[in-house]
């Protein structure tokens, strides 16, 4: 994983991506118990991207030149299939810009905050997302005032109320 993150940092230094943050199951693992997953979800923005439907070709070409090949929807980088996901909603953009700076061993990286992860999971709304939200709550991984702000800002308060009703929380 550390070598994978080093490659991502190099992509950022070389200007391929403006900013990135770890999301998905690996980001959730930062806050709760380890979650079984095959890939690493990387949310990113690109400098001066005209629209949100940007092409991943420059990223894939850059990585191919370094010897990292695309496998399905991911690129295999140092043993980890990495999925590059443009931050295409306001919630994801905010999650990316406010991600927490951490170190993995000695390598700097960024992980989405727990409150944003919960909001993204709520918005995505698959059964596994709901199960993960419950893990976050059981582990007291979220700061309530911050979560409440995020949910209100992104019009998710109603969905949150429905989620709590459904699961008797």
């Amino acid at each position, binding site marked *: 994983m550390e070598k994978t993150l080093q490659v991502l940092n190099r992509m950022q230094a070389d200007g391929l991506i403006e900013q990135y943050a770890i999301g998905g199951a*690996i980001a959730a693992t930062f806050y709760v118990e*380890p979650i079984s997953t095959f890939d690493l979800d990387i949310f990113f923005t690109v400098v001066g991207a005209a629209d949100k439907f940007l092409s991943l070709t420059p990223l894939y070409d850059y990585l191919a030149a370094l010897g990292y090949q695309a496998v399905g929807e991911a690129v295999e980088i140092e043993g980890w299939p990495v999925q590059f996901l443009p931050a295409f909603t306001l919630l994801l953009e905010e999650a990316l810009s406010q991600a927490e700076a951490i170190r993995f061993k000695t390598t700097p990286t960024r992980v989405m905050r727990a409150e944003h992860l919960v909001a993204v999971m709520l918005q995505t709304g698959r059964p596994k997302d709901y199960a993960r939200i419950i893990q976050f709550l059981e*582990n007291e991984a979220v700061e309530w005032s911050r979560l409440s702000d995020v949910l209100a800002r992104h019009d998710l308060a109603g969905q949150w109320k429905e989620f709590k009703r459904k699961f008797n929380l």
Partner: protein
Amino acid sequence: MMDDTDISELLQQRQARRRRLAQLSFEEKIEIVERLRELRLNRDVMSAHRVNAEDAIKDEGNRRDSIS
């Protein structure tokens, strides 16, 4: 058969184990994720081998049927 007390105890133990895992460092947790991934990949490979073997047996059966 388990009664409600047994189930409640099991759930409590499971919850305690999950809490302990949540307190590991990120690096330790990722090591566990990597091991889980390896196990799943190995299981998938084994499963693919089994399917291939079953297909081979079926093919051989079909071949023999067509000869007889």
